């Protein structure tokens, strides 16, 4: 009969080099993971000079729908053409453009320079979610940045 020899006790050693290899691999993997997690997306964006944006709307048959974003004490005042939308309600832009539903027309977001990039991006996002995908941005003309006295046609939206 053969018995296993109990005296054969193997020495357990900590292998440092493979451990360092694995730690480095995990570190690199996690760094890459955080890079991948913050995925970024690209939005092609046209740009119009403020004067050109106004010109597009001054014609008899305007080729663009103007979305005006104006900074007010209450928040971001939004106006599409002559319609005034609730303050800070960016989703209303999408609803209004869906109602207009003319994909052939450009949408020009004319933003107050005092607004933040985030606020303008939210307006762009809402416009792009509508059927009208040809979205461009412009700076709200200097004379248009003065707060309007009351309801009425947009300063840059009407005929000149």
């Amino acid at each position: 009969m053969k018995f296993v020899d109990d005296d054969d006790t193997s020495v357990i050693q900590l292998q440092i080099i493979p451990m360092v290899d694995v730690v480095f691999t995990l570190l690199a993997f996690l760094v890459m993971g955080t890079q991948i997690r913050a995925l970024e997306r690209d939005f092609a964006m046209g740009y119009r000079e403020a004067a050109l944006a106004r010109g597009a709307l001054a014609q008899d048959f305007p080729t663009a729908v103007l979305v005006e974003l104006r900074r007010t004490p209450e928040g971001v005042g939004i106006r599409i053409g002559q319609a005034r939308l609730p303050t800070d309600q960016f989703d209303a832009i999408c609803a209004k453009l869906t109602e207009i539903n003319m994909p052939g027309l450009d949408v020009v977001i004319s933003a107050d320079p005092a607004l933040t990039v985030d606020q303008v991006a939210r307006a762009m996002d809402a416009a792009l979610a509508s059927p009208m995908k040809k979205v461009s941005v412009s700076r709200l003309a200097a004379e248009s940045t003065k707060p309007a006295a009351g309801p009425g046609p947009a300063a840059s939206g009407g005929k000149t």
Partner: protein
Amino acid sequence: MRKAIHFEKATEHETLTLQVAPLVDIVLFLICFFMLASELVRSQKDPAVELPQMTSPQGASEAPAEVTVNLRADGAITVDGRTVALDLLPGLVASQAAHAQQDGRPFRVVVRADRRQRFAALDDVMSACRKAGLAQVVFRATGEERS
């Protein structure tokens, strides 16, 4: 009396074995390293820029561009890790565009603007790109696509 000559027995050659586990470790590590390095080099991203969120399905997956303009919250403009003055930006973009045209490559400019920055600053950057002859720029945002 003559002394006996002792010869040593020839030592046995140790068998050389290929250690697979460390080899795999190193190969994986190198792959990760090169992927990470190429990603950082390609993207020209400024980690100080906090992007706005956009969830519209109209956005495309991030693609590398010839020029990536980073607009930080403090107003600094960086391109390829270097701070660039606004008045020098049209010249820089135009020269890169000319190189791309010579090589027959498509040319794209990506603008990564910090969400806290004023729109006026973004407008200045876009205006500079327009001065360089570009009709369109790519606006970079973050966020999952809305289903």
